[in-house]
């Protein structure tokens, strides 16, 4: 699985890194592809996560201000860390997407008073992840 580390989050920059770790891991999984019924959905989700990754990178570059320097001391990133040892690709995808729903929802709330544009992105991502989970479970 991807080189991503999902390490602890001690500032908003590392929160954003945690987000991109999620997106890169998902992208790699979906790009590997699968045969059978999930193939088309994996291809679509690869495109979606690529777009999201680009959006996060752009947000890192253009939307962050001095507030991101505020230290974060009460964010337990461990609870969002996905189990990357699931061999079935669809089950792995569901694990990732569900963890992302939880992560983006919480991060969106945290960003709300700091940077609303980032908060909105996370809120939108969480909703998308919910949709992805439904589609994966319907396979």
């Amino acid at each position, binding site marked *: 699985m991807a080189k991503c580390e999902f390490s602890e989050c001690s500032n908003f920059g590392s929160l954003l890194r945690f987000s991109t770790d999620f997106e890169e891991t998902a992208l790699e999984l979906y790009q590997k592809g699968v045969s059978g019924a999930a193939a088309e959905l994996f291809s679509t989700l690869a495109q979606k996560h690529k777009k999201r990754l680009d959006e996060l990178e752009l947000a890192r570059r253009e939307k962050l201000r001095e507030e991101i320097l505020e*230290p974060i001391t009460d964010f337990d990133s461990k609870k969002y860390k996905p189990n990357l040892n699931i061999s079935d690709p669809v089950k792995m995808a569901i694990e990732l997407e569900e963890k992302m729903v939880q992560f983006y929802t919480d991060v969106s709330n945290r960003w709300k008073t700091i940077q609303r544009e980032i908060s909105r992105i996370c809120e939108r991502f969480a909703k998308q992840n919910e949709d992805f989970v439904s589609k994966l479970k319907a396979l």
Partner: protein
Amino acid sequence: MALLPEVKKNYGALKNYINGEWVEADADKYNDVVNPATNEVIAKVPMTSKKQIDEAVSAANEAWEAWRETPPVTRARVLFKMKEILEQNYENIARIMTQEQGKAIDEARGEARRTIENVECATSVTTLMMGYNLEDGAASGIDEDAVISPLGTFAAICPFNFPAMIAFWFWPYAVATGNTYIVKPSRQVPITMNYIFELIDQAGFPPGVVNMVNGSHELADALMEHPGIKGISFVGSTPIAKYVYENSSKYGKRVQTQGGAKNSLVVMEDAVMDKTVANMLASFYGCTGQRCLAGANLVPVGKKAYDIVVPKFIEGAKKIRVGYGLDENTNMGPVVSQAAKKKILGYIQKGIDEGAKLVLDGRGIKVPGYENGAFIGPTIFEDVAPDMTIAKEEIFGPVVSIIERDSFDDAIDLIHQSPFGNAASIYTQNGRWARDFRYRVQAGNIGINIGIVAAMAYFPFGGYKDSFFGTLHGQGKDAINFFTDRKVVITRWL
């Protein structure tokens, strides 16, 4: 977390950029450029001779006429190209800054963003530089126009704390308005600007329009005294800002010099404390306290505010992660050099000697793997009296003085006792206090529930009292006005 890769381990001997070419420096001496986290030498910077300044000024002067005649819209196009190249190299710029200056990577990325924003703002020159006129303004049948014109060659003398951004408060506006320019980067952190000049070289400026020379204060003196230079922009400490202002003025130049600061962050009892503390931690310890907008004095008003904010602040400061800035989890990097560290440690000792209570001591901090780095941990003094050295002088490091005041008026009096007037902030939910604060406080940058009052590119970077010498500030319309003059034309057709 793994470290982000450095752009290069070593950048070798740096050159100067004159007349659109990289040239070997005419220098007898090269200084070491040191990574403050590792204490390793990562480049050599030339102490360029005064003779080579003549070459740079001549090139800039010669380029001026053709550049001035280049339509503003065409000049703006070069800046659009510059923006694109900076965007492509955004991450490299940030990492080099961290490597040579020490700041945490997200701080460096923030600086890279603000650097680019100044280029974006300067591309609006076709609007910002428009003059004005009045038909029959002089008399019936006689029209009057005010034309805004460039002046010639300007120069910037830059500090160590923002290796990229500060030069960009000036030069994009100068060249957008038709002037030519010379940048002298800080000799402590020249690599970032040298890298940026590699990008400038690709942007399409005609030779001589933008130039860079590396060197020491002797080179700065040569710029101030040179008859071919129309004006000087400087950012640094107050004694040097004053010197640059006086010396450059003596030689008939336009001058704007930004000096030091001692910024107070006032906390009222009705502040939203958790968010206030988080924001203040970023203000006091961001860039390891090495910026003129950093908080220095924490001023709780009344016992209730004190009892809530101080324990939370100390607790928060203890959790700040100190390390190499290329680790994305680092909250605070080293100070810029071992010399800076020694100076800051001297201030801490002075605080102890003068009777302040050291409640958080950052002196002994060890960063595993970086034992030779110039690290100082978050440091806090309580029971600081306004007349103590640590309450008055600019420390430029991660040292906070807590000075309790009994009332809002006392807090404002404390701010006004300082010779500096760079920034001040208040944390409150009370509109009346907030309004009074912004109205009464004599400082160029005021924060209401914001601890780092960094003006965006399209606003001037303010400063009152001994924090600024001059009339027009850097950035935005002020910069446009600094780099131009108004020519009045009265026309009568016979």
